[in-house]
């Protein structure tokens, strides 16, 4: 049986997950040139927010159809609160400081958030199971889709469309574009840049929250470390797509996800490369792809300007 369609779908799903998280990295970077390494943990707290809603707020046995939107809202509330809090108390005080200071702060914050969840969330010392949507799997040709995958397939493009509309058509969105281009001039033109920055953090957190719920539904479990590796991968996706470019984040995510999946599936079949084909090598291939892209397009796949303008 031909496994290519299934592997492409696997890669597309993994990539959509990367893309949803990458949007947060890319938006914050585009506006304040900060690599928010705590973003993976904002994603993780969102997953725990959704779980909290399901376990402790909704009555037992609530149908997932009703629970899911509420869990999404719970995830968003928690993620946005953490992101805005981080911006207010960890990053804003350092806005005039050299770039390394907020970067180190971000790494510290990431560790602090992980340990906080580990220490204080009930039974979070090992993975916690996440509620699942009943039904499925669905078979389309030779492709099998789980119900959790369907959510991701619907949520990712919808989020993207919403984001595109928001940035292009609304007043705040245009303010964001102006701030990204030149913060000082935007300020002179009457844009409240402090508020724009908060909005960028909050929006990134909203997408991370959508990704977090999708992640829980897809894998059926969440844990306090889940944001770390996914965050790194999403950051890679953001760079691959062109950091600062929101569509680039999605494209970069999907490229990375598909590349990893195909590397796992097919590299081993190439004569002479059989020992380089296992999943543990897929990251290596994904990063080789990243290096190749950056060699020929330093600004990333969709990047319009050189990443570092200063």
């Amino acid at each position, binding site marked *: 049986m031909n496994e290519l369609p299934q592997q492409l779908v696997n890669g597309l799903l993994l990539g959509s997950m990367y893309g949803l998280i990458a949007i947060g990295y890319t938006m914050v970077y585009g506006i304040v040139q900060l690599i928010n390494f705590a973003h993976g943990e904002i994603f993780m707290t969102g997953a725990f927010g959704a779980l909290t809603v399901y376990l402790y707020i909704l009555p037992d046995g609530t149908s997932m159809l009703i629970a899911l939107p509420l869990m999404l809202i719970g995830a968003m509330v928690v993620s946005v609160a953490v992101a805005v809090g981080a911006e207010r108390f960890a990053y804003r005080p350092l806005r005039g400081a050299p770039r390394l200071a907020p970067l180190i702060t971000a790494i510290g*914050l990431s560790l602090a958030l992980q*340990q906080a969840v580990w220490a204080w969330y009930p039974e979070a010392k090992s*993975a916690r199971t996440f509620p699942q949507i009943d039904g499925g799997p669905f078979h389309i040709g030779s492709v099998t889709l789980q119900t959790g995958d369907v959510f991701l397939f619907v949520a990712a493009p919808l989020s993207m469309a919403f984001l595109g509309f928001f940035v292009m058509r609304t007043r705040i969105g245009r303010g964001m574009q102006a701030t990204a281009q030149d913060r000082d001039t935007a300020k002179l033109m009457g844009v409240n840049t402090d508020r724009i920055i908060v909005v960028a953090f909050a929006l990134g957190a909203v997408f991370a929250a959508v990704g977090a719920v999708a992640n829980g539904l897809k894998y059926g479990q969440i844990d306090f470390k889940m944001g770390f590796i996914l965050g790194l991968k999403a950051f890679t996706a953001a760079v691959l797509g062109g950091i600062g470019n929101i569509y680039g984040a999605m494209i970069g995510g999907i490229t990375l996800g598909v590349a990893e999946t195909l590397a796992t599936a097919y590299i081993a079949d190439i004569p002479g490369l059989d020992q380089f084909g296992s*999943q543990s090598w897929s990251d290596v291939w994904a990063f080789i792809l990243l290096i190749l892209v950056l060699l020929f397009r330093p600004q990333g796949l969709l990047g319009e300007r050189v990443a570092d303008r200063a």
Partner: protein
Amino acid sequence: MRQRSLIAITAALAAGALTLTACGSRDDDGGSDSGSGGGGTTVVIGVDAPLTGDLSALGLGIKNSVDLAAKIANKEKTVDGVTFKVESLDDQGQPSVGQQNATKFVANDDVLGVVGPLNSSVGESMQKVFDSAKLVEVSPANTNPALSQGVDWQTKKVRPYKSYFRTATTDAIQGPFAAEYVYKDSKKRKAFIIDDKKTYGAGLAATFTEAFKKLGGQVVGTEHINPDTKDFNAVATKVKNSGADVVYYGGEYPQAGPLSKQIKAAGAKIPLVGGDGIYSADFIKLAGAGGTGDLATSVGAPVEELPSAKEFVANYKTEGYKEAYEAYGGYSYDSAWAIIEAVKKVVEDNDGKLPDDARSKVVDAMQNVSFDGVTGKVSFDEFGDATNKQLTVYAVENGTWGSVKSGTYNG
């Protein structure tokens, strides 16, 4: 002025972050009150295990069981004039952290023996530190044969470190034991082999593969997964299309659970078989409903079914530990008790006092320790391996592990 208050806030945050991180690893540090019964010498038994992170379920079981052994020894005054204290360090399942912990134990003169670690890879990094300090180490869970029989254990067995002992059965027996069960009892012929490239997982997968092929089975595919991720869909699709009728996984439950789930979701309704690293209640939780029928081999006979273990199980309950004793509880208790027995021998040979070179004497005494423990007769062969080579196959049924078959592999 503004600048200064900002620095203050940042400093406070950074301090907060550091404290939190420290909390994480020090949470249970030495947090045992093994009863400081009336004076005499205090002997510390170290515990090194992953107390945080995704393997902490097993690690906390180890720590609690050692604590229980120390408490009982103090209560029954097993060694006259000696009070046992337990000091536990968290290795997070990381070889580098384990080695630092080993150095800490060596530096503390009161430590006469260490129980642990859980992971073979961590054990590898600790052995030399302990051996050069002549500090005895008894692992309840390391199963990689190379640790006690040298890297060339298949051809020429050489014991690399004299101070290393273990109560667990090695993968040299565990892998073939699983292969025999899968081939003869489950009648599976086509295996897909997956491992996580760690010392334990890769070693176990290799011994299984070799034995399975020897029996006449066919290996239709191999994969090495990246233990940092949870997305194994690409691997699951490969498994499905390989036509395998069984998956053997060398690794631990945090990856094995999702792997089993994703393989079944991909449409391959075949059992996943693993070693003692997946024999945990958390595996069943992570694998979900599809995990029914998955198999695990684990060291020893099931603790609950051994008459010798009844007392242990009852005492563990009485002490009210928050976490279950898990797969290695009985072995950890026996490991700690072996240290206690060795210390007893050393003290008795020295007119009831600890000699100055107690550490090396304990190593020598350990070699001849022999007693009836929780898991049966406890003694060590010339490599420091347990002489008790029992293994059991467990299967997931109705949401728990049920024992299917006990025995040993005689090659």
